[in-house]
């Protein structure tokens, strides 16, 4: 117990890095994922094919391998960045595919009549998407997006194996230092992660129930 309370600052710093990692990688991949989703439903066959290829490759690759490519292969090409930046790159590349699929599912959930009406009054693809489809898709897409975000929070733990001093990495160091209180140290780490993931999960299911009720 005291092993946890005495080292609270270490946990909090780790938590801050975990949050920062989530925030940056989450914003980048949400943006890139939305663009990729637009490419996957566009009238241009090559863009559709390229988007589908990216999603299929990344979704079938373990995130650990994506980290390998960011942390071990990029330096081989003469790109030297901090461990944190490599982790952001790996998480963003990987989660772009998942955000893309969540957004695409949301777009597919919009009633077809909306798109047909938009086309009937003469809107082009870009206008249909930006003014009619996306604003409505945003509603049904929020719960799945939160679920992807929760997966992202959990995946940031992998960065601990690649030199980033986030929550799990700090906890591991603590567990090695306080070898007679390993269970306390790791148990407290669980609590910190649950502090992030459980409220997010509750928010997702609350929004989902609300949206289902409305429609």
């Amino acid at each position, binding site marked *: 117990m005291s092993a946890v309370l005495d080292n609270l600052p270490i946990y909090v710093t780790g938590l801050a890095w975990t949050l920062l990692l989530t925030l940056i990688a989450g914003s980048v991949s949400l943006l890139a994922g939305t663009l990729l989703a637009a490419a*996957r439903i566009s*009238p*241009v*066959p*090559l*863009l*559709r094919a*390229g988007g589908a290829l990216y999603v299929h*490759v990344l979704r*079938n*690759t*373990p*995130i*650990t*391998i994506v980290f*390998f*490519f960011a942390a*071990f*292969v990029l*330096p*081989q*090409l*003469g790109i030297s960045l901090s461990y944190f930046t490599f982790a952001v790159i790996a998480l963003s590349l990987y989660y772009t595919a998942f955000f893309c699929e969540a957004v695409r599912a949301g*777009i*597919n*959930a919009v*009633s*077809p009549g909306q*798109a*047909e009406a938009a*086309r009937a009054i003469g809107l*082009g*693809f870009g206008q*249909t*998407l930006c003014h009619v*489809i996306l604003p409505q898709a945003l509603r049904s897409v929020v719960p799945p997006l939160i679920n992807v975000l*929760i997966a992202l*929070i*959990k*995946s*940031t*733990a*992998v960065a*601990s*194996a690649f030199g980033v001093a986030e929550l*799990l990495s700090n*906890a*591991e160091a603590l*567990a090695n230092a306080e070898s*007679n209180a*390993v*269970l306390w140290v*790791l148990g407290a*780490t*669980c609590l910190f*992660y*649950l502090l992030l*993931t*459980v409220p997010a*999960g509750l928010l997702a299911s609350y929004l989902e129930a609300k949206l289902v009720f409305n429609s």
Partner: protein
Amino acid sequence: MSATLLFDHPGPRARRRVWLFNVIALVAAALLAAGCLYALHQRGQLAGELWRVVLDGDFLALIGDGLLATLKVAGLGMALSVLVGLALMAGLMSRRRWVRLPVRGWMEVFRGLPLLLMIFFVYLGAPALGFELSTFWSLVIGITLYNSAVLGEIFRAGVVSVHRGQREGGLAIGLTQAQVLRIVLLPQAVRRMLPVLVSQLVIILKETSLGFVIGYTELLREGRTAVEYLGGQYSIPVYTAMAVAYIALNLVLSGIAGWLERRLR
């Protein structure tokens, strides 16, 4: 809604525009590929001898061992996760609150934690409780703890989606709750949840690569060992081979699922 609903069948002008965008996308992709290849060439990464390593006998033997170790963890992890997941689902469907609530709490906790933390918990926590666990079992138990909670929720959603007349009919002909679940509801639910189930099994296969972190010698760790032995300049060919191996494995898994799905229909 299919993608084609978002745009009309293209007329002559739109066809020209689509064609133009196709060319632009092609040129952009070609430029990107050429840039990457040039950057690789500049650093001598395209040299034939670097890439020939993926066909080398010793390397292939190493990868074969790694693949086998990966498949062992994945197979055992999948089987245990499905079994425990079914048990958790049965607990969730129980009519007794004192069974249902703890099971729900257990699942919420284990779904909300990073898998890597759970693997560490098992690996580092077991000695604190006075017994040693191998990296293999730490990995399997960690994977099972996490994925059984996820699968339990998938199973529950599947069973709930079966029309309630099926359950009532089963009860009416005198089956017990457990029998209804096993004989009537589950067989029908399995067909519906097969796609989600398989994508979760693919996730399990991918997660075995976390074994590399605690030092279990699976596919990825063997690749890392090969690179450490051969030298850093070999990292691109070796890791590309690893990625291809995982993607191929997952495609095989998805292919089997697709075949199974067609047969069940």
